[in-house]
């Protein structure tokens, strides 16, 4: 990654002014670089990293492994685009190995997710099989550990 992305990756709220100071560059320079990355769709958004287990609207999340028949000419892209257009689908990856697509789906409860799989995914003609795994607990996401957050344990001041 480049230096600016490294900084934003640690805290996306760091301002262009602050980044400029940290890197010994001009603010204009940093603003332009960020702007370019946004235009080039290198930076696609800025979001908080939320520990969902701590808020009311705790959603269920499942990983669905899909085996699919790639379509002639378009490979997996065409089926993928039919899947990612659903807002319930949070992440979608093409995988190597025992299955083809990893779909991360969110719903209000298990039933809702199960219905989504049976009514939408399983119905698509190129899908050969589905295997649904509900996620029970988040330990780490985006490089951040979610449990046992001890805070600063350093005890000595000198």
């Amino acid at each position, binding site marked *: 990654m480049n230096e600016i992305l490294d900084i934003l990756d*640690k805290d996306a709220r760091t301002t262009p002014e*602050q980044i400029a100071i940290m890197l010994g560059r001009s603010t204009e320079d940093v603003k332009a670089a960020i702007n370019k990355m946004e235009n080039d769709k290198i930076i696609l958004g800025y979001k908080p990293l939320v520990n969902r287990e701590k808020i009311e609207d705790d959603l269920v999340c499942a990983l669905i492994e899909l085996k699919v028949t790639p379509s002639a000419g378009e490979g997996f892209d065409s089926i993928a685009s039919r899947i990612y257009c659903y807002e319930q689908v949070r992440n979608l990856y093409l995988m190597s190995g025992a299955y083809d697509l990893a779909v991360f789906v969110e719903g209000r409860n298990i039933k809702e997710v199960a219905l989504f799989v049976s009514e939408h995914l399983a119905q698509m003609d190129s899908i050969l099989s589905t295997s649904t795994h509900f996620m029970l607990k988040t330990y780490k996401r985006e490089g951040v550990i979610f449990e046992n957050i001890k805070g600063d344990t350093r005890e*000595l*001041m*000198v």
Partner: protein
Amino acid sequence: MDYEKILSPVVTAIPPSGIRKLFNVVNEMEDVVSLGVGEPDFNTPQSIKNAGIRSLELGYTHYTANAGIKELREEITVYLNRKYNLSYDSEDVFVTVGGSEAIDAALRTVVVPGDEVLIPEPSFVCYKPLTALAGGVPVPIVTKEEDNFRLTKQQLESAITPKTKALILPYPNNPTGAVMSKKDLEAIAEVIRGTNIIIISDEIYSELNYTPEGHTSIIEIEGMKERTILINGFSKTFAMTGWRLGYACGPKEIIQPMIKVHQFAIMSSPTTSQYAAVEALRSCDNEVNVMKNEYNMRRRLMLAGLRSMGLSCFEPLGAFYLFPNITKTGFSSDEFCERLLKEERVAVVSGNAFGVSGEGFIRCSYAYSVTNINKALERIGRFVKKYI
């Protein structure tokens, strides 16, 4: 029992740490943002941890040779050569319980009761008490903000007396962040060359030097190797404070007697840490660089932040501290720290913890995440604005 009569007056005379007092208050408060600690926020790189774990699995749980395992001593000589162009034999090196023990052993080995030990201040808290415990007389040399807290030739010259036994050279410096360039060191060497003074060079922050030239060891300066005890360690460079490992290098004639002190007080340094340290020296340049770059970014950020509040702050080029001058607020260092903690819940360390000459300053550590630093700057800014 009359404990006062029992205790050694030398120990009784050592003032209690003022830092501890504030720290206890901090522990009882909620939502405190600290810039207080003097150790890396990074964790020890994984490969170093693995090497330590592996050594345990292999059953390396015994004492080592007093001087430390040969593999590590050899690796230290290779490292010092690679980094700073120094040539030591593994017999001129021994492994200690942190730089702290090496400083203690050095002072106990060379100081004869009544000897004077020159200590540039502000500086790390241990030099004075350890000198006193060794029977020596600590002689502070006040370094100045306008000299960028470097030790100057004139200051050194006027501090030397016939009783001067040793000079502590604490650069890169805690708490000021000052560094000494090759030229600065040459000026010091000029004064020392004609004397019998021993230099105890505490270079524990050697890898955290943000100048383009990087760190220069006093050992590199003509004629200094024969009279210098070089102190370094793993705490700061490799984020290994809890492993308690450092080392001393010097002429055999001094190192061998130092090992006697170590042998009877310590036996040998932690075995697990020694095996981990071999890995650190061999293959962690990349991790060290990543940490250094990160410190450097935070250094610039915090320096700009403090200056924009109207505080004067010299640009430190080493270690991970800033040492802003807070006299404009009208508070003493202690008052500033207490009020800042009470009014804005930010913990910093009073400059006078590092010697009387630290009065008028505070030490802010940037061994903290950018998020934490920004939060602290915002609060300090609000506080300072009320008073200047």
